[in-house]
């Protein structure tokens, strides 16, 4: 039950941060488009925006992975301690 609640909380956390990330990406788009389009053109602008989006997703995935792995290792060590005692 403890593992289930933990994983469910991870899913909720990921969902909230996904929504927050989407808001940040799309809130920054008008600013990026207005400044980048003038300087580098439409195609490069799209590539740039996709790149920024991809980097944000990678950072989000890294945080997500770290959180879940740490939780898993703490559960496992807690069990090992309980088994040895």
């Amino acid at each position, binding site marked *: *039950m*403890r*593992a*289930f609640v933990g*994983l*469910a909380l*991870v*899913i*909720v956390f*990921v*969902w909230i941060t*996904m*929504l927050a990330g*989407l*808001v940040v990406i*799309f*809130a920054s788009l008008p600013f990026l488009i207005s400044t980048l389009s003038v300087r580098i053109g439409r*195609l490069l602008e*799209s590539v740039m*925006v*996709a790149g920024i989006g991809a980097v944000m997703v990678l950072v989000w*995935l890294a945080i*997500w*992975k770290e959180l*879940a*792995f740490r*939780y*898993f290792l703490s*559960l*496992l060590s807690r*069990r*090992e301690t309980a088994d040895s005692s």
Partner: protein
Amino acid sequence: MLEEILRSALTLGAGFAVTLALVPFISSFMRRHGVVGVDVHKPERPLVPELCGLVLVLGVTASTLIVGVFYSEYLLRIVAFAAATLIVAAVGALDRLVRIGPKLKPLLTALGAIPILLLVAYDSHPSFPLIGGTRLTIIYPLLIPVALAVTANSVNMLDVYNGSMSGTCAVATVAIITCMFIRGSAEAAVLAAGLLGGLLAFHIYNRYPAKIFASDVGSLYVGAAIGVLAILGRVEVAAVTILMPQIMNAFYGLAAIGRLYERKEISARPVRVLPDGRLEASRDPRAPITLARMILASGPMREYEVTRHMIALSAVSAILAVATELLIVWW
């Protein structure tokens, strides 16, 4: 609305009936021809007919034909759905024959995007929660092959325990249908109902103790079907939320191993079977950290209990997905 619900019920019934009727024939055919696999999560290691995901392919495709009768104006998108999912199912069947390998398989499953792109069966103006409608005319078509490869292979990687793929995907499909009705994509919801019918019938035989295995042909097909339905029904963000347990499982495995891998090539298994039949999380640091290993970290469980946990996590994701869709519609 009532008409759409009745049509969905009919398509669900067709998918369910065809799949259920075909299982005995296909499973005995596979067993007769030696197409069997070892159920590794049981101490007695029974042999179970493989490639039975073929019944899902046939059952869901039969229900798709019925949707074509209801919505002739929607025919192009129905053809795109059938063609895309059948391409991915063919990749799954090919993998059973020639062993494609972990790197080539995602690339080949991405080929399922070709019919969607050729028939322009997508809308490059997706809506996001708290943001509203967007215009992604360049990026959206580029993301379709990636989306299909991710959904197909994520569902495939969770098809490890009896009933885990069919159970979690049935919950996911219920949520996707709900989201489609909220969005007003009734045609796509009727199409998805056929997939739900097939999954429910398949789950009867695939749940613990499994009498059939879907193999790659079934799991890749179901994953691709969910991906294509998300595109046709314009519920992309909700679909990402719905598939979180599958994506979590795939991503954790990849992050722990550091590359794409096949289950068979991993020497340190994530889970080991105890003599009493219960499953225990491996303490080997080389073993991939999968969703099942995480569930089992708090203590040993029966295989069906692990599957129940996975289905319950899918239900949590399903609730969040419906909330996502409501945020999009209300915003």
